[in-house]
């Protein structure tokens, strides 16, 4: 019995997918509402009932449809073209195992995830792994749009990785540990600079509006994913859904977490994830796209400065002046 409850973190990918679908719907709905549109309807009027009853599961319908479509593989593509999305999905699934989900209980089962003394470092590598596999898959298609998208993605990643790592390390300094579980807490108050730096980094990692340069629909036709279709695109779409959940959950764990028992932990966790998802949605709807040079400059200046402040803040808080 004990062993079975200890393995509850194996359910994390499923939770990630289900909650991720809701977050994805939320993203589209917020985007539409900000533009004073309706967005995917929750209840369709009677005359459209034969098409669909509710659009709540719209992201799921999209994935289902993509998985049922024919996959076109360009003749210029190398085998990495098919391996890329599958690798990305496996990295994303692995990532969910390391992000605590409603870690309310005690003992190994209560942590809600696999936890080592250095699990933060693993999270970094898995996050980079997802991006790198998408870059590998995309550039293997030999499409020019994918090449431009890949270059932009790498530039953005280089500029973004520093604030993200420094921001989370500020928490590690405070907690004197690299384990995600020990860093959890309501750090939004204790270190607001780190929270801002990490939030911006999450936006970049998810390609949310001011930073959706690598997949800019209007200029480079989807960037790295231009040549993907059918099932492979469906796999990429699942990866996106899981990443949206994993990064929102990571933010809730690191910055908005209050230790609560049992079901309260779940309520707090899901509420927090929805709030973070809503915030991401608003940012997505309110901003226009940066150019790549503006984005890297801005990340190198503002975001890096922010994360350095966070580190200084943490050092002063930890060791005094």
């Amino acid at each position: 019995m004990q062993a079975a409850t200890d393995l509850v973190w194996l359910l994390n990918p499923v939770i990630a997918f289900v909650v991720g679908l809701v977050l994805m719907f939320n993203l589209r709905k917020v985007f539409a509402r900000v533009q004073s549109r309706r967005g995917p309807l929750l209840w369709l009027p009677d005359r459209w009932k034969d098409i669909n009853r509710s659009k709540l599961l719209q992201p799921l319908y999209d994935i289902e449809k993509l998985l049922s479509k024919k996959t076109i593989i360009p003749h210029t593509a190398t085998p990495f073209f098919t391996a890329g999305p599958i690798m990305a999905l496996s990295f994303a699934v692995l990532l969910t195992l390391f992000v605590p989900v409603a870690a309310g209980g005690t003992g190994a089962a209560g942590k809600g995830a696999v936890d080592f003394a250095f699990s933060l470092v693993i999270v970094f590598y898995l996050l980079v792994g997802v991006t790198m596999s998408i870059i590998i898959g995309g550039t293997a298609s030999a499409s020019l749009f994918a090449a431009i998208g890949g270059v932009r993605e790498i530039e953005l990643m280089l500029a973004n990785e520093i604030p993200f790592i420094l921001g989370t390390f500020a928490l590690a300094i405070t907690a004197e540990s690299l384990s995600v579980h020990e860093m959890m807490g309501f750090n939004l108050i204790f270190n607001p600079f780190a929270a801002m730096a990490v939030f911006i980094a999450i936006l970049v990692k998810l390609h949310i509006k001011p930073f959706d340069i690598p997949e800019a629909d209007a200029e480079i036709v989807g960037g790295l994913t231009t040549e993907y279709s059918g099932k492979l695109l469906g796999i990429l779409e699942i990866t996106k859904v899981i990443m949206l959940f994993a990064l929102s959950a990571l933010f809730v764990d690191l910055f908005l977490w209050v230790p609560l028992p049992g079901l309260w932990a779940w309520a707090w966790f899901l509420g927090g994830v929805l709030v973070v998802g809503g915030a991401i949605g608003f940012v997505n709807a309110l901003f226009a796209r940066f150019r790549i040079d503006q984005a890297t400059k801005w990340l190198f200046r503002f975001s890096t400065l922010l994360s350095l402040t966070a580190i200084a803040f943490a050092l002063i808080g930890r060791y005094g002046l």
Partner: protein
Amino acid sequence: MSSRIKKSPWIYHAHAGGCVGCDVELLACMGPRYDLERLGVRWVASPRYADILMVTGPVPLHTKPFLERVYAQTPEPKRVIAMGACGCSCGVFIDDENYSVAGPVDRIIPVDVKIPGCPPKPEAIIEGIIKVLRMK
């Protein structure tokens, strides 16, 4: 198979000649008043993602190979909508002396639904899209 498209239609807009009248009406369809996203429609940037091709304009000779290629790049199952008087019958561009037009859309690729009008109203466009969604 079509029931999947019904629930999540992703539309690629292929502009093949024509004035831009039809395309402006298409934009109006995604605006606050006629919001097509209520039905889960998503406008996509690459034919590889698309389920429905929305073709506007009287396909000039110059554009014909590209339209054929866009059609081939769209993965099955797919549907085609010819939009505007141009898409249905070459509209104002039809003329015995017009040397540059390759013909209406259905002479080049198979068409499922035609939306007449110059340009069609957004209501008509939505009606056309719903007709495609209801197709077996």
